């Protein structure tokens, strides 16, 4: 028992109390928002009170755009239209139908979510600047449609609503309006920070950075995109309902495409992905020209464009982004000694192991029959059969173009067969999407380790835990691992360790079948030796089934129970390492690597 106790005890490192960047930025941002909202109100200056209320509304919308753009990876140049849809819908319902404003606001939010859904649809087909242009077209059309529907919207004359009660200063010296707006802006930023810490937030980010990694963890990238648009539209909708109360008047001119472009530029100029970035971006692009050029209003637009241009040329990461990079560079980080995979394996070997050994499972892990895939006139796979038994290490070798990567992609669902059948864990997966196959208990690693530098080292592992459907690892073990890895700087992790982090993620996911795509690439000879031992332990102690696509024949022959050799899409040898070593195709591979 002492050994187990030692396992779970925290490593005795000197832990510097380092607050997370997000939290610090959130605190600074909230302080700025609250101060900028309260001070003009307390001072009794109506012009600046209104201006800062508007600025804080814009910050909220830009913050949501930040979430959409950075965390979810979606390019939208049309968030102003969603803002406007909500504001207009609420105003029209309130003025035409006379409903109390809070009910009208609900209609507004509903309309915004609907608009968000309309944006989500093209995102399933196109990404990047194509999606940006689609949303921009929509946002350009929006004010035109408002004018065209003047029977409901009163066209360019706009709608006036009276909210003067909210603008009266209370005994505290500030108006309820100011408090509400500051509150909303801070709430949006806080929600963003909180979302990042949830499993959903992590899934969004993985889906944005690497759709394949997301799929291999059982997450559907398309669903994540839709969710992102809907969540952001919901938030933007809520913020939008405050527009008319703040200004007292709404007209199509307020939702010109310029507004959408402003939100987009504010995010980038401030520093995409940074919580404080939106505050800085909106202040620099909107507030600064308005303040500095209060007398010279006609130059505002020019200055705004010039500032955006200059900032992008000098600081492509944005203002806050560049500052953060500079700050991180100055901080000295120790490279991680070990990523704790050992600790994880110790747990499974130790008496505390919950017995996660499906060694007695009957049936084969993988059964492929007559798999065929053609690309034009070339047969990538030609009637290939493959049987991978449970609790085995199965090697898959062959020259470039032999079809092994195609086969691996078939197994994990990233490619479809033309004919034949593929059974994983007893289920036919031929037409199953990759993320559903992953949920059957299949995990895979990629040739280039999918380790994301925009997430912390622990988060890179945590997404594996998020993907597990049974919780087989006790909380104290996870806490211990987390503590060991928390200090790690992803950029400094050497390649060999990245490979292990990816493997750790797959193990924590609880995958029974692990597909490894050229895992030894880039490993030094000593790292390869360690890796061989590691794979054997995964098979023996954790009962995993491993399929190994590799070029390093020595490695494969050293640990594989069964080996399949492919050449030109056909299976040319299959059997144990000793059985097939005299096969002529195998001999060719060893002596003279030929092109398939």
């Amino acid at each position, binding site marked *: 028992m002492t050994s187990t106790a030692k396992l779970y005890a925290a490593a005795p490192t000197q832990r510097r109390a380092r607050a997370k960047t997000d939290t610090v930025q959130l605190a600074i941002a909230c302080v700025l928002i609250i101060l900028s909202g309260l001070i003009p109100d307390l001072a009794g200056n109506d012009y600046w009170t209104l201006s800062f209320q508007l600025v804080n509304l814009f910050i909220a919308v830009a913050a949501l755009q930040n979430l959409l753009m950075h965390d979810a990876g979606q390019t939208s140049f049309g968030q102003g239209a969603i803002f406007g849809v909500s504001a207009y819908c609420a105003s029209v319902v309130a003025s035409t139908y006379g409903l109390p404003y809070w009910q009208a606001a609900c209609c507004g939010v509903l309309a915004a979510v609907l608009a968000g859904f309309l944006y989500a649809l093209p995102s399933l087909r196109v990404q990047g600047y194509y999606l940006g242009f689609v949303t921009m077209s929509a946002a350009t059309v929006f004010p035109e449609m408002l004018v065209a529907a003047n029977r409901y919207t009163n066209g360019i004359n706009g709608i006036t609503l009276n909210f003067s009660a909210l603008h009266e200063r209370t005994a505290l010296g500030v108006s309820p309006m100011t408090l509400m707006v500051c509150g909303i802006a801070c709430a949006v930023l806080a929600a963003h920070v909180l979302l990042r810490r949830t499993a959903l937030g992590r899934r969004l980010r993985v889906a944005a950075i690497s759709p394949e990694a997301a799929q291999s963890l059982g997450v559907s990238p398309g669903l994540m995109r839709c969710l992102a648009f809907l969540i952001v539209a919901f938030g933007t909708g809520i913020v939008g309902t405050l527009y008319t109360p703040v200004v007292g008047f709404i007209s199509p001119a307020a939702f010109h495409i310029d507004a959408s472009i402003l939100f987009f530029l504010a995010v980038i100029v401030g520093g995409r992905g940074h919580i404080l970035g939106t505050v800085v971006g909106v202040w620099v692009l909107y507030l600064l020209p308005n303040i500095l050029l209060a007398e010279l209003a006609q130059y505002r637009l020019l200055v705004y464009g010039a500032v955006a241009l200059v900032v992008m040329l000098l600081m492509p990461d944005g203002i806050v982004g560049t500052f953060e990079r500079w700050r991180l560079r100055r901080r000295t980080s120790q490279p991680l000694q070990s990523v704790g995979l050992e600790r994880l394996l110790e747990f499974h070997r130790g008496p505390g192991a919950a017995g996660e050994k499906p060694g007695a499972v009957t049936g084969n892990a993988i059964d492929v029959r007559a798999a065929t895939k053609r690309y034009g006139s070339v047969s990538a796979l030609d009637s290939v059969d493959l049987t991978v038994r449970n609790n085995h290490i199965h090697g898959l070798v062959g020259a*470039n173009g032999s079809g092994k990567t195609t086969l691996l992609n078939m197994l994990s669902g990233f490619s479809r067969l033309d004919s034949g059948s593929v059974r994983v864990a007893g289920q036919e997966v031929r037409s199953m999407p990759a993320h559903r196959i992953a949920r059957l208990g299949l995990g895979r690693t990629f040739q280039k380790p999918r380790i994301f530098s925009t997430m912390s080292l622990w988060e890179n592992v945590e997404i594996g835990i998020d993907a597990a459907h049974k919780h087989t690892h006790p909380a104290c073990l996870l806490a211990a691992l987390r503590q060991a890895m928390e200090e790690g700087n992803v950029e400094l992790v050497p390649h060999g360790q990245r490979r292990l982090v990816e493997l750790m993620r797959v193990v924590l996911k609880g995958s029974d079948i692990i597909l490894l795509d050229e895992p030894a690439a880039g490993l030094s000879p000593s790292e390869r030796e360690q890796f061989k031992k590691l794979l054997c332990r995964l098979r023996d102690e954790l009962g995993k089934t491993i399929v190994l696509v590799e*070029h390093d024949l020595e490695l494969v*022959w050293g640990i594989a129970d069964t080996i399949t050799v492919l050449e030109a899409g056909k299976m040319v040898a299959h059997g144990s390492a000793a059985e097939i*070593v005299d096969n002529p195709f195998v001999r060719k591979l060893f002596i003279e690597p030929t092109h398939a």
Partner: protein
Amino acid sequence: MLEIQQLCSGYGNVPVLRDVDLSVKPGEILLVVGENGAGKSTLLRTIGGFIKPERGSIRLDGKEIGGMSPEAIARDGLRLVLDGHRVFPDITVWDNLRLGAVVRKDRKGFDAAVDEVFEVFPILKERLRQPARSLSGGQQQMLALGQAFVAQPRILLSDEPSLGLAQSLLPPILNFLRRWAQSGTAIVIVEQHIDIALSVADRAMVVERGAIKLSCAARDLKAHLRREAQNLSPV
């Protein structure tokens, strides 16, 4: 002429080449072999300027070219012919050749070089006015080499010239390279078909897991490899 010392490079965070030393003399043909993933293409791409080396030096006649852009390196006289018979598909054979020669300014030199190319690869002369996409893979490879030839580089790097080609097309290509070397160009070939390539190479080098495992005269290579395979054979 080409001196490489302690070269380390890779993709992103994946280290591929470790402390590679290499040198080629004018008129020499060096054959680089190794299994897939060993780092051969990475080596050529690093020398050619497509990958920035992490450490080490690459000297062309004494001038350090490590870290320069591919265009600049080509203008200095080192030409990389990429793998996969890459030519400009929508441009005619003739114009492909013309584009190859933009790094050199002299017209007469171009005419003479083109004539040589046509002598070795008459099919290119036949299909002069056709777009390159209408050529077969092997013919495109010939065109790619011809395009490099008219630039009259001092050093040629050829990445897997036989990739995807029928065996019968290799001898004329390799003989062309032999002739080319005889005129003073240093040539480095990365190849998988050792047998045929060995016949024109002077020296050979085996790359394994990013490091040079073996360097010897071309005629000794097979013997060395056989010995290695015997040591390696399991059971």
